[in-house]
């Protein structure tokens, strides 16, 4: 996070407006589209992030590029970011926006790190158990990290449960030392 306090304020503003128009998930999608387009296109990125180009030039580019693909609110918001020289904060703003969306809809983003690919049945079992534990809808992202050796690490926000073999071996090593 570059500056969370700043990003949070932008995120809260656009979230509130989206909520008024009942388009919260749609605006999230639109913002993600803008972010992804810029991230994938190096030339576009260098233009929009360039300190030599004025805000009006950048706004023109954005207008031509995104006006047909995203909703007015998302475009206007991005225009504002360009005007205020805050284009670099878009990623953070999207993350905070989606946090708020998840919070309001009882969704919990959970990261499951495992050593090898797991079968969908096991994944479903993890989701069921986590749902039971937290009482929230689980949005599970599975990542494979062979260095964990075995077991799994579950993390959600700032909390994590480390049941990996890597950690257990480290603990054992500490005990034997």
């Amino acid at each position, binding site marked *: *996070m570059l*500056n*969370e*306090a700043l990003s*949070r304020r932008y995120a809260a503003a656009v979230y509130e407006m989206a909520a008024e128009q009942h388009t919260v998930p749609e605006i999230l999608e639109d913002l993600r589209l803008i972010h992804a387009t810029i991230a994938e296109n190096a030339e576009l990125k260098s233009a929009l992030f360039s300190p030599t180009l004025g805000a009006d030039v950048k706004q023109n580019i954005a207008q031509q590029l995104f006006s047909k693909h995203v909703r007015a609110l998302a475009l206007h918001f991005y225009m504002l970011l360009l005007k205020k020289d805050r284009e670099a904060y878009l990623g953070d703003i999207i993350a905070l926006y989606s946090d708020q969306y998840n919070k309001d809809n009882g969704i919990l983003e959970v990261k499951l790190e495992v050593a090898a690919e797991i079968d969908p049945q096991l994944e479903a079992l993890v989701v069921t158990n986590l749902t039971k534990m937290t009482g929230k809808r689980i949005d599970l992202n599975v990542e494979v990290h062979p260095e964990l050796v075995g077991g799994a690490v579950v993390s959600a926000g*700032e*909390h*994590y*449960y*480390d*049941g990996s073999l890597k*950690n*257990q071996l480290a*603990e*054992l090593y500490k*005990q*034997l030392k």
Partner: protein
Amino acid sequence: MAIKADEISQILRQQIESYQPEVHEATYGTVIKVGDNIATVYGLSEAYSGELLKFSNGVYGMVMNLEEDCIGCMVMGPDNDIREGDRVERTNRIADVPVGAAMFGRVVNALGQPIDGKGDIVTKERRTIEFTAPMVMDRQPVAQPMQTGLKAIDALVPIGRGQRELIIGDRQTGKTAIAIDAILNQKDTDVYCIYVAIGQRANAVATVVDTLKKHGVMDKCVVVAANANEPPSLLYLAPYTGCAIAEDLMYHGKHVLIIYDDLTKHAIAYREISLLLRRPPGREAFPGDVFYLHSRLLERSAKLSDELGGGSSTALPIIETQLGDVSAYIPTNVISITDGQIYLDADLFRSGNRPAVDVGLSVSRVGGSAQLKATKQVAGPLRVDLAQYRSLAAYAKLSADELDQVSRDQLARGDRITAVLNQKQYVPMPVEQMVAVLFAVTRGYMDKTPVSQIPRFEKEFISFMEHENKQILDSIKKEGKLDDKLMEQLGSCAEKFSSEVFAIEEA
């Protein structure tokens, strides 16, 4: 005896077999930046102020600042292998240190870990380093004397158990010496001692420990040392650690004497931390809460009520002044928190008055009621005599020849009192001897002795009393006060000694 390799592998096998895999559960944040023993941590939105955090290299930190999107954390140990992006875990506890009987005779660091090479401290008792000071109703007035064994202090600025008496003076004026003498004097009492060294040279601390050992008091002492080379976080914690150890004894109904040597360096360490945490600087660049820093520490020293066991914790904080400037920020703060101060004067020290207590500027706000009755009886005229002497001495410098007999007598008396109040280091005086000597000087039995002979008079008078009039000293010790009969006996002894014994020797 060699241990068989088989045996070792057997034990290791057992350990591995009996190992219980556990899921490690934690809440973590991420290090954004680290330097100068201060880390900024992103996340940990639920951490509370003062909580211990654990860095991935095993070093602990303490939460100091809670900000909107990050935490300012003081690292309590080496920070050179903490990296940006490292995980920092919550521990859900605040800092605590081992306390209790296992600590006696030990030298520990600010985290309560032994640094004297005598092995681990085996104890289960722990106490949080921060604790609320006793409430008003939990206390009782200071009424029991805490003898320091120094004539100048016990007679003129008496200290009571549970009192906070500041020792203040320039560098090299004997501040630590007074504190150490006070500890040595507790050898045969029921008072335990804690010496907290803050930001001192390791060499100086070693000397103190050596002195305590040599005089046989180390067994009832704990030395908490945060030396000059240690990070400011440890210097900041050391007094609270010492206080926790003292407090544990106090709440168990025991009596404790705790020395903070010195709080100036403590304040400087805290200033360093505060500035690095970007807290706004105030006067002399100290942060706004530097008063609270010391008040919350010193308020924890108290005489507890009888319901709470009647224990006490007497604090002797030390403050170093610059060129005798007691109106600087930290000295004025601590003067206002404590129940009096012993002011040590550099000029007095240089002119050979040791301890260099400036009687005019030193006060004890509560010690009077704690002073032993006998000391009070003999020391009563002392303050008046000295005050008159000082005003007269200033005047006499201008025109000594024109003084009348009364003034000259007063000057002579003052010279002798000043000589009697001098005392060598590491020889605390038992209270009964002190009473006898002070009696002799205030009643004029030393008036005929030349000032240069006063130390010899004092020494031989004590020896005379010890050998030939032991019962008088014993009854002073037992009674704690001088009744008419005792006063008369003491008078005749002093008379006999000054006119017969000492005079004959002189001839």
